[in-house]
């Protein structure tokens, strides 16, 4: 099932955090096409969120085509017509930009970052 928690002090709105977390589950393959998402009420209880917040996140995911809601029976992952690779790349770029911002704030140069990446790649 979905593995994530909400950071209440984050400047990212809570419903966006829910959206990001579910997208990550889908893009990483932990949630697959045809899997059922937890009911709104249950996810709200687990995360201690207002059910309206979870509903808003599900609705947005449906608009973006990640999930399909069937009336009365719940919400299902639907990635049949999705280009998951391009979403994955987009998300990677977002994460990388955040990392770069912080690294540059620390005063790191591009050379430092490159060296670091090479060192980590060698260790893997």
């Amino acid at each position, binding site marked *: 099932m979905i593995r994530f928690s909400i950071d*209440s002090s984050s*400047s990212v709105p809570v419903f966006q955090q829910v959206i990001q977390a579910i997208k990550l589950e889908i893009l990483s393959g932990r949630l697959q096409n045809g899997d059922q998402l937890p009911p709104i009420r249950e996810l*709200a209880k687990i995360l*201690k969120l207002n059910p309206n*917040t979870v509903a808003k996140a599900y609705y947005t995911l449906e608009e973006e085509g990640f999930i399909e809601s069937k009336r009365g029976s719940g919400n299902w992952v639907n990635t049949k017509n999705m280009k998951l690779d391009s979403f994955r790349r987009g998300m990677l770029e977002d994460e990388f930009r955040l990392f770069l911002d912080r690294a540059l704030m620390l005063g790191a140069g591009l050379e430092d970052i490159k060296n670091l990446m090479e060192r980590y790649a060698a260790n893997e």
Partner: protein
Amino acid sequence: MNENVLEVRNLKVRFGKKVALGDIDVQFRKGESVVIAGSNGAGKSTLLRCLAGVIHPDKGQILYAKDVPREKIAFISDGLSLFENMTLKQGLDFHLRTFHIHDPDESFFQQLKFSLNQKIKSLSVGERTLYHLSLLLSQKPAVLLIDEIIHAVDPYLREKFLEAVIEAIDKYGTTMITINHTFSEIQNIPERVLMMEGGRFILDEKSESLKAKIKKVVTDVELPAEIPFVFKKESVVGKEYFVYPFQDDFRRKYPYDFQSLELGEIIKALIGGEYAKKRMS
């Protein structure tokens, strides 16, 4: 979603010479969760008691939507009004009779797993609070008014309490209006924050936009005058500024770390700011 469930117009309440509520106007929408914050004596409880019909205002109107009958308005405060010598079952029957509830939802009782044959006085304070809440939820409330009650409840029952409230919001589209000092658990529930001071509203903001507007800066120097703040805390270690209203270009212009805050901390800072103002005047 945008339908009002409750509208308050020109509400005034006085206790002797003291003005408890001075000309309050406010609307609440269907299914909305609102928290009313403010220092002690700001008028929060008086307002909630007016909405519940427990006290009559000196002036003004409280208008509930047409589809909200009296028995769909549920009110709970820390002065829990329960007959201690009744059993839990008798208490429930009494509640249903008193409020003319013909089709109660008793599922909340089943979740509690209390024996219905024990007397109410055998429950602890926290259990009573939860028992009282399930009495109210059996009404399938359209409006749930909660006056700071979870401070007496232990962490486990608090979670149960919160889950019951979340279920009610989803099941019945309940509008929840709470007064809270203890925030850690419920902080992601309220969608809107109302701040009161001296019997008036001084702030009415969506939780998300309030979070975007207030940031904390920890520093050992004075902030430049262009950065407005509501509250400042000083200690030997440094100064904490609660910047409000925060603008995004502060980040570009100034080298400070503007930290985001949880709702509880934000409200603490706003209340602290009001106390600081009072000291100055």
